[in-house]
C-alpha cells in the first residue's frame, strides 16, 4: 500500500523549490516507506480503523475547477474584513480569498507562495515542529507538502481579527487525497487567533484529507486556535496539530469534530520553557456509523506550567468516539498544574465511546487530576423540563445542546463562539 505513494512521490515535479525543502520531503517519504500506515497493533492507533484508509488507492486531487463564491458562503462567518484564505481541494483559490493589509508586517498567505518566494521564516519552521517519526500520516503529509496557510505575526504585533483558513473538498473525483499543511508562527509577544475549517460541498463523497498544522508560539505570545472539522460523513480525515510553546506563552485550542466516516485529530503540545499556560477544549458530535477519534498529548517538560483540558462528546446512532488524553510530566517539571476532563453523552444504545486518560507523572510537587465520565441524559432533568410544558423531544434536544454548549462557552473570541454555537445547534436540531 505504501508503494503507491512512493511512486506518486517520485513523479513529483521538484520545480523551482528551495534547496532546504528537498531533503525534508525525501526524509519524510523514506520514513513513510519504512513505517507505512499505523497498524492496529500500534497502541496509539488501536481504536482508529485506519486500514480502510490504507487499503484505498487514493489519487492526488486533480486541479480544482473554479468555484462560485456562493458555494463557500455557508462556511464563511464573522466579518467580511477578516483575513480569509480559501483552499479548494488543497490549493489556494485567490479569487475566493481576501486578506486585507495586516498590521506590523504580519502575513496570512498561501504556504506554496511563501515556499516559492524562499521565505526565511518558513525555512526555519516548516517540518521542524511536527516530527515525521510521529506517524505515517505525518510523514506522508510532509513528503507531499503543497499548500495551506502560512500565518506569521512579528514580535509585539496583535491581529485583532481572526484569520480564517477554509479547506473545501469538492469531491469532484471520488477517492482523492489532499495533504493540507499549515504553519502558524507567532513571534515574541504577538497575539493572534486562527480558525481552520475543513468542509465539503459534496456531503456524500468519499475522499481523504490528511492535514498537518505546525504552531510555534513565541515568548509571551497569545494564540487562540480553533479547528472546525465538518467533512463529508463518507470521507476520511486525519489531522495533526503540533504546538511548540515558549516561555510565558498562552495557547488555547478548541476542536469541533463532527464530520468524517473515520476522523481523527491528534493535538500535541510541547511546553518548552517555564511559565506556560495551555488550554485545550474539544467537542465531538457523532452519529450514524461515524468513528471520531481525538488524541491529545501535552508534554510538561519544564516547571511552573498550567494546562487545562476539557473534551466533551455526544454520540448517536451506531457511532463510536475515542478520546485519549496524555499528560506527561517530566521530573524537572515541578509545580505543574494540569487538569484533564472528558465527559461523554450517549444518545443511543448502539453508540459507544472509548475514553482513556493517561497521566504519566515523574515530578513529585505537582497538582494533576483527570476525570472521565460516560452517561445518558438525566431522567430527572428530562421530567423537570416536561413538567414545565416542554415536549419530550424538545427537552432531549435542549439538554443535549446544553451539555455540548458548555464547552463551546470557553472559546474566547465571541464571533467564533457564536458560529460554533450555531453549528452545534444546527447539528443537534436545536432551534433558537
Amino acid at each position, binding site marked *: 500500500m505504501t508503494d503507491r505513494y512512493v511512486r506518486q512521490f517520485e513523479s513529483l515535479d521538484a520545480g523551482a523549490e528551495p534547496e532546504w525543502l528537498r531533503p525534508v520531503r525525501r526524509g519524510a517519504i523514506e520514513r513513510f516507506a519504512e513505517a507505512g500506515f499505523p497498524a492496529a497493533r500500534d497502541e496509539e492507533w488501536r481504536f482508529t480503523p485506519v486500514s480502510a484508509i490504507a487499503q484505498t488507492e487514493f489519487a492526488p486531487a486533480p486541479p480544482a475547477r473554479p468555484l462560485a463564491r456562493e458555494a463557500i458562503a455557508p462556511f464563511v462567518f464573522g466579518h467580511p474584513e477578516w483575513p480569509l484564505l480559501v483552499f479548494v481541494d488543497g490549493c489556494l483559490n485567490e479569487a475566493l480569498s481576501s486578506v486585507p493589509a495586516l498590521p506590523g508586517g504580519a502575513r496570512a498567505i498561501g504556504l506554496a507562495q511563501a515556499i516559492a518566494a524562499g521565505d526565511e521564516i518558513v525555512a526555519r519552521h516548516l517540518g521542524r515542529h511536527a516530527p515525521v517519526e510521529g506517524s505515517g500520516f505525518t510523514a506522508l503529509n510532509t513528503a507531499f507538502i503543497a499548500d495551506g496557510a502560512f500565518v506569521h505575526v512579528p514580535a509585539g504585533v496583535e491581529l485583532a481579527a481572526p484569520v480564517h483558513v477554509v479547506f473545501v473538498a469538492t469531491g469532484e473525483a471520488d477517492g482523492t487525497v489532499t495533504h493540507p499543511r499549515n504553519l502558524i508562527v507567532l513571534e515574541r509577544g504577538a497575539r493572534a487567533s486562527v480558525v481552520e475549517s475543513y468542509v465539503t460541498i459534496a456531503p456524500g463523497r468519499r475522499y481523504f484529507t490528511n492535514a498537518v498544522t505546525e504552531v510555534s508560539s513565541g515568548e509571551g505570545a497569545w494564540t487562540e486556535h480553533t479547528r472546525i472539522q465538518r467533512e463529508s460523513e463518507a470521507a476520511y480525515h486525519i489531522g495533526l496539530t503540533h504546538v511548540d510553546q515558549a516561555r510565558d506563552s498562552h495557547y488555547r485550542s478548541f476542536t469541533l469534530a463532527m464530520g468524517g466516516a473515520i476522523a481523527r485529530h491528534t493535538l500535541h503540545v510541547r511546553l518548552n520553557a517555564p511559565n506556560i499556560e495551555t488550554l485545550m477544549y474539544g467537542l465531538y458530535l457523532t452519529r450514524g456509523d461515524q468513528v471520531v477519534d481525538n488524541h491529545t498529548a501535552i508534554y510538561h517538560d519544564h516547571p511552573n506550567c498550567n494546562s487545562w483540558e476539557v473534551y466533551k462528546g455526544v454520540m448517536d446512532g451506531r457511532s463510536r468516539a475515542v478520546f485519549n488524553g496524555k499528560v506527561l510530566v517530566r521530573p524537572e517539571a515541578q509545580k505543574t498544574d494540569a487538569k484533564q476532563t472528558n465527559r461523554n453523552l450517549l444518545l443511543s444504545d448502539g453508540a459507544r465511546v472509548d475514553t482513556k486518560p493517561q497521566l504519566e507523572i515523574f515530578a513529585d510537587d505537582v497538582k494533576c487530576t483527570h476525570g472521565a465520565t460516560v452517561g445518558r441524559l438525566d*431522567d430527572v432533568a428530562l421530567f423537570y*423540563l416536561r*413538567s*414545565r410544558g*416542554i415536549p419530550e423531544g424538545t*427537552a432531549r434536544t435542549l439538554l443535549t445542546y446544553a451539555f455540548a454548549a*458548555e464547552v463551546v462557552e470557553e472559546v474566547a473570541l465571541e464571533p467564533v463562539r457564536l458560529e460554533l454555537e450555531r453549528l452545534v445547534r444546527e447539528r443537534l436540531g436545536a432551534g433558537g
Partner: protein
Amino acid sequence: MLEIRGLRASAGGNEILRGIDLTVNAGEVHAIMGPNGSGKSTLAQVLAGHPAYEVTAGSVTYLGQDLLDMEPEERAQAGVFLAFQYPVEIPGVTNAYFLRAAFNEIRKARGLDELDPMDFLDVLEEKLKVVEWGPEIMSRAVNSGFSGGEKKRNEILQMAVLEPRLAVLDETDSGLDIDALRIVAGGVNRLRRPDNATIVVTHYQRLLNYIVPDQVHVLSRGRIVKSGGKELALELEARGYDWVEDVVGVA
C-alpha cells in the same frame, strides 16, 4: 377542578399510595400534611406525571379530562404545575431561555402566538416582582449553583410565569429561612385567583401561617386519614402525627 378517586400508585414494586380520595375546587387551597414516608411527595409527583411511579388503580379527573392519560408536558400545557421539592439544576440553559421555552410551549398548546425574547422580557419584568428578584437571575443557568432558597424562589417564579390552574407545591418550605419563606409564601398568595387552585404539601404547620388553607388533609401510609379546616394543622403541630395515627387506629 380536581377529582381523585381510589388512587393507588407504586414505585419499584412498593405500593406507596393506597387509595386516595380528594376533591379540590377552583379558588381553594388544600394542605396535605403527614409524616415522612406517608406518600405526600408521591401524590404530588403522580399528579405531575413522574415516570418513576406506576398508577395501579383509581382515577384522576382534572377539568373534565383524564389526567392519568396525559403526558407530563400535556398536563403542564393544560395548567398543572408542580413546584419540585428538589428543583433540578440544568447547567448550560439560562433561566431566560428555559422560562421562555416553557411559556411559549404552553401558549402554543393553547393556540396563542409565541412571544419573542423582547416581548417576553416585558412579561418577565412583572413576574420577577412576585419573588422580589431583579433581572440578573435570568442570565444564570437554571438552578445551577443556586442556594436552596433561590431554587425554591425560582420554582415560584416559574409558577408566576406559567400561570397554572392547579399548582402543587411539594415541600416548598423545606430548607427555607424565614425571609425566603415569607417571599415564597407571598408569591403563592399573590398568584391566588378564584379560578385556580393550590395544593400545598408540607410536613410542618409553619408554611400554613403564611398560606392559609381552606382544607387540611392528613396522609398516613398512603391514605388520607383525617380532613378538616385550617385548625387541624395547629392541632397536628401541638399533638404530633402519632395522635392522628392513634385516633384512626393505624397499626
